[in-house]
């Protein structure tokens, strides 16, 4: 047998084939990760349960309403621009001057931090059936922004860092100190008012 080598397969086209496949995946891929505003819905109320125990004190609740014309009201005051809502909410939750009409604060023992003054403020969001989704999300966004800024303030004071830069455990503590209490309570028709 003569040492006859098998002829090498011409592999110069492998690159072309691979490129073709690559292009296909490049075109079909959607790198977009899912983003959005995360919320927890309240569980359905037990029909046998009495209403009174879930009632919070009047001063601890701010009612944010969006009517059918996408106009915003916060605690019966009209808000001309959605961007102004954030400061209103921040003032409501933090209650810097310990105002009587703004939410009370409760000293709460938080593990790893100590005693923190936790605001008992609850934001109740109400909307009309014909409110546009866009306006609703804009308001939700503004509420989250207000809470996020308060969390940033808190962590700046505590650790000198922004909330996002803290470790997982520290974030947990900040979340406890500045809770995000947004209630999307039972749907109500706010147009008839």
């Amino acid at each position: 047998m003569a040492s006859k080598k098998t002829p090498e397969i011409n592999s110069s086209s492998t690159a072309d084939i691979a490129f073709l496949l690559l292009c296909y995946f490049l075109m079909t891929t959607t790198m977009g990760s899912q983003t959005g505003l995360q919320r927890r819905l309240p569980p359905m109320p037990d029909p046998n349960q009495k209403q009174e125990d879930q009632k919070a004190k009047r001063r601890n609740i701010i009612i944010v309403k969006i009517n059918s014309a996408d106009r915003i009201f916060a605690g019966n005051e009209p808000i001309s621009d959605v961007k102004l809502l954030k400061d209103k909410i921040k003032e409501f939750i933090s209650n810097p001057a310990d105002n009587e009409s703004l939410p009370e604060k409760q000293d709460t023992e938080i593990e790893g931090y100590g005693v923190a003054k936790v605001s008992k403020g609850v934001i109740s969001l109400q909307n009309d059936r014909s409110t546009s989704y866009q306006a609703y999300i804009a308001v939700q966004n503004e509420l989250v922004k207000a809470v996020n800024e308060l969390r940033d303030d808190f962590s700046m004071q505590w650790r000198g860092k922004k909330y996002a830069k803290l470790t997982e455990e520290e974030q947990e503590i900040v979340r406890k100190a500045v809770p995000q209490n947004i209630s999307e309570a039972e749907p109500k028709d706010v147009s008839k008012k």
Partner: protein
Amino acid sequence: MSKFKPGEKKGMSAISTSSLPDIVFMLLFFFMVTTQMRETENKVSVTLPSASEIVKLERKDLASYINIGSPVRHLQAQYGTDARIQLNDSFKTVDDIRDFIAAEREAMKEGDRPLMTVSIRADEQVRMGIVTDVKQELRRCSALKIMYAARKPAD
């Protein structure tokens, strides 16, 4: 200068392209792994509202999607332009959400079920009425972890 001997006719040697397929294959594998095919056809057109405080959905495999919007153009003759709910591949009503959630739960591993997130992908033009109905139905099915899908504002 022995390097430039006039007798030696040595031109530039061709660049070896034998590793080119390997490089391309590597890229190819990257895209194959990261890609995910859209498994359902969009029957409603959804333009997500923009929000600046968005967070990423951590576990995409634990998410179920509820699309709300007006039907895409070629279906408008059949279904009209009113906002509709799309679950999986077809138009559904609010009452079908219960079965949909149950089916999605069933498909998950036992331990993952409490972590299930329902992503509400609603068009920005949609009225809140239909979204409220969906939310109430989700509460009734105790699928309480929800997410309002939104995109980053373009600025």
